[in-house]
């Protein structure tokens, strides 16, 4: 492990001062250069060539002004944690970080900086402590460099305790994520289990119904509330919208997050089906919720054949049936896209695995991935978070052994499905996500079969929790658009 402390100047401040000197020296020729400078400054202001560190974490402590009668510039200490690789993704070599501390106070800052590297199962791998002194109105850089043995996601924790600042900052980095593996707890009868479920679904008459919804329709889109029968004859619903234009439209099936209620989604270039999967109430009314469980993910969790997600996964397959059966509405059934986030992300992956009529799959922060690792990670780091809290609560209160619970979940673990996916797939994950920990999601991505992985993309979103960034949202749409175009060419 190495560390270096640069006092007073960062590279940036040196460049800034050189630029200032150039400006002063070149004043006489500036009149000639003015037009060029103007164009340059416009381009810079438009952020045309910006190369900002999108994964740096900044924390600022601002002091109160000491002089009430004079408007003084606020004084602050700013701590920035900058990983040595973009997005904090290290695919080889040592891990290196720079801790930049800026002090704009008129007083010097003294104290300590401690950094720790912690595994996702909360074990300290390495760390260090530095005594620091920062001169008034200056900055320092602390460079840390260390070796990691195993691939995975690690927390880089920085504790800064100096005269006018005391805080702890968390950054997450990935080390060789493409090598992350996890044991596969796939039941021997996994394939038969789902073939049987699909057979049962096929035996249910879908009885598709369309209700034109005038109040939700617009001049450009027709909106329908649709209804169909799914597994166990449960009625499921959805909002179906289609652009009011001639032509065959690709179809986007949006799958819901946990307890999410959809509104119609009007896309410019696609017909969309926002699926409302079965609800707990529906199962209760059909006497299929014997324990009167109110929490969705716990309904019949100790019975693999009646766990709610068996029906939920089949609801998604029924949505694909709906699209294919109603192609005459102007639907291009060769281009069906499934998309969703969180639970919806898991449903999207499972649907693409169970039904090869899906052409493109987009999954954000899918939960229920690599459940055994998830259980270990979440119990050690975020035991109070969803869904670990519910699962722990359940097996404590129902005296169901954890092993038995996990046996059911093995039939529903997304990582057991993804090997069957054949279509291009894009997955996004937040490094700070406690519900879909990045190690679990990445391990799931790594289980895509070789052919599919070549067509697919995975994105690690630095400093992001159980959500996605705006940047990734647009990138995903662009990627889906590109793949939609490519599907047409086939």
């Amino acid at each position, binding site marked *: 492990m190495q560390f270096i402390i640069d006092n007073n100047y960062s590279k940036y401040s040196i460049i800034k001062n050189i630029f200032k000197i150039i400006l002063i020296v070149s004043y006489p020729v500036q009149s000639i250069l003015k037009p060029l400078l103007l164009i340059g400054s416009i381009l810079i202001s438009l952020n045309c060539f910006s190369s900002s560190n999108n994964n740096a974490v900044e924390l600022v402590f601002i002091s109160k002004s000491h002089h009430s009668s004079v408007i003084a510039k606020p004084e602050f200490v700013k701590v920035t944690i900058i990983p040595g690789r973009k997005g904090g993704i290290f695919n080889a070599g040592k891990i290196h970080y720079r801790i930049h501390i800026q002090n704009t106070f008129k007083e010097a800052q003294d104290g300590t900086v401690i950094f720790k590297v912690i595994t996702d199962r909360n074990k300290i791998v390495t760390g260090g402590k530095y005594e620091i002194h920062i001169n008034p109105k200056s900055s320092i850089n602390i460079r840390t460099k260390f070796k990691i043995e195993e691939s995975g996601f690690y927390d880089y924790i920085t504790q800064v305790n100096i005269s006018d600042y005391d805080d702890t900052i968390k950054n997450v980095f990935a080390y060789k994520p493409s090598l992350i593996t996890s044991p596969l707890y796939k039941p021997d009868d996994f394939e038969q289990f789902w073939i049987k479920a699909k057979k049962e679904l096929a035996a249910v008459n879908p009885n598709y119904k369309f209700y034109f919804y005038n109040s939700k329709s617009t001049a450009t889109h027709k909106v329908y509330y649709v209804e169909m029968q799914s597994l166990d004859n449960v009625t499921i619903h959805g909002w179906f919208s289609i652009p009011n234009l001639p032509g065959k439209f690709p179809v986007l099936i949006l799958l819901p997050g946990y307890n999410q209620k959809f509104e119609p989604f009007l896309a410019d270039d696609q017909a969309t089906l926002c699926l409302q999967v079965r609800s707990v109430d529906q199962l209760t009314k059909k006497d299929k919720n014997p324990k009167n469980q109110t929490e969705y993910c716990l309904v019949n969790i100790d019975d693999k054949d009646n766990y709610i997600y068996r029906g939920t996964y089949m609801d998604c397959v029924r949505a694909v049936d709906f699209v294919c059966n109603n192609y005459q509405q102007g639907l291009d059934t060769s281009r069906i896209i499934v998309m969703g986030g969180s639970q919806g992300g898991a449903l999207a992956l499972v649907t693409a695995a169970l039904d090869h009529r899906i052409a493109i799959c987009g999954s954000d922060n899918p939960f229920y991935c690599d459940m055994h690792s998830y259980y270990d990670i979440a119990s050690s780091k975020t035991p109070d978070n969803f869904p670990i809290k519910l699962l722990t609560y359940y097996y404590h209160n129902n005296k169901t052994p954890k092993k038995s619970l996990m046996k059911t979940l093995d039939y529903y673990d997304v990582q057991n499905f993804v090997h069957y996916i054949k279509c291009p797939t894009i997955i996004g994950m937040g490094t700070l996500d406690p519900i879909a920990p990045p190690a679990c999601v990445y391990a799931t991505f790594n289980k895509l079969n070789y052919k599919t992985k070549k067509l697919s993309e995975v994105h690690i979103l630095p400093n992001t929790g159980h959500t996605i960034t705006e940047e990734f949202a647009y990138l995903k749409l662009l990627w889906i658009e*590109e793949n939609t175009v490519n599907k047409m060419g086939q």
Partner: protein
Amino acid sequence: MKGLKIYLLIILFVFLANQTYAGFPVGKGRWVYSFAYNYAYSGSSFDSNWHNHPYKSGTYFSSQTYSLYITHGISRKVDVFALIPYVTEVAKYDSITLTRSDFADALLGLTYSRINKTFNKTYSFKLAGIFPLYSGTNPLPMGYGSNGIDFTFNYTNSPKRLHSKGYYLLSTSLRHYFADDGPNQLLLTIERYYAINRFNYFIWALNGAFSTSINTNTQLAHISNKDFDFIQGKLSYGRRVRRNLTLFLEGYYTPFGRNTGLGYGGVLMAILRVP
């Protein structure tokens, strides 16, 4: 014969070409075909002092242009494009009417686009070669008759994030023709694209063309003028009529100019995306 200028329609091709997708990348693997019909008419001209003088009665210049603009997305950021115009020109003065139908200057080039992180600003750089698809100037010239190069920078900003909901376009083109007397040209466009709704669009634009050359001879009839300026206003309405087909109807007018014709005209354009 004085004042019959044909440069107006030559420049028009550029503005037409730029309008298709406004510098947005068309998308990897996608083809975009833009078919346009343009009618231009000039019944008077501007002198070197920006003063307008009507032609003698019965004297005018008109042109009908059929153009095909093809763009193909090679990658997410790089497109290749080509513009092929076919023009019918009519110059009428006194009792003489001259007409010529031929291909004009073609463009072939590449566009590199960069989109910002929130996908509401696009910067695109176009580099294109200009290739005359005709020879001679008899009875009328179809252009300058020499090869050239065009560099265009486009900046678009969509205030509502998605460019389908409207955007601003700022475009700057620098052109150079490889003849001894050039010309060198600067073409500027400011465009505002409004989405009335998802399928109906309204566009206004201001185009400026500034052409300089050591050849300042503007007295000869039928010779493509190389030293001129003009400012043109444009209004356009677009409607998406199929999933992959959008039609535009456009009118333009040239209220200010130097050594150029006072022209107006209309364009009917169909933009087809495949797939």
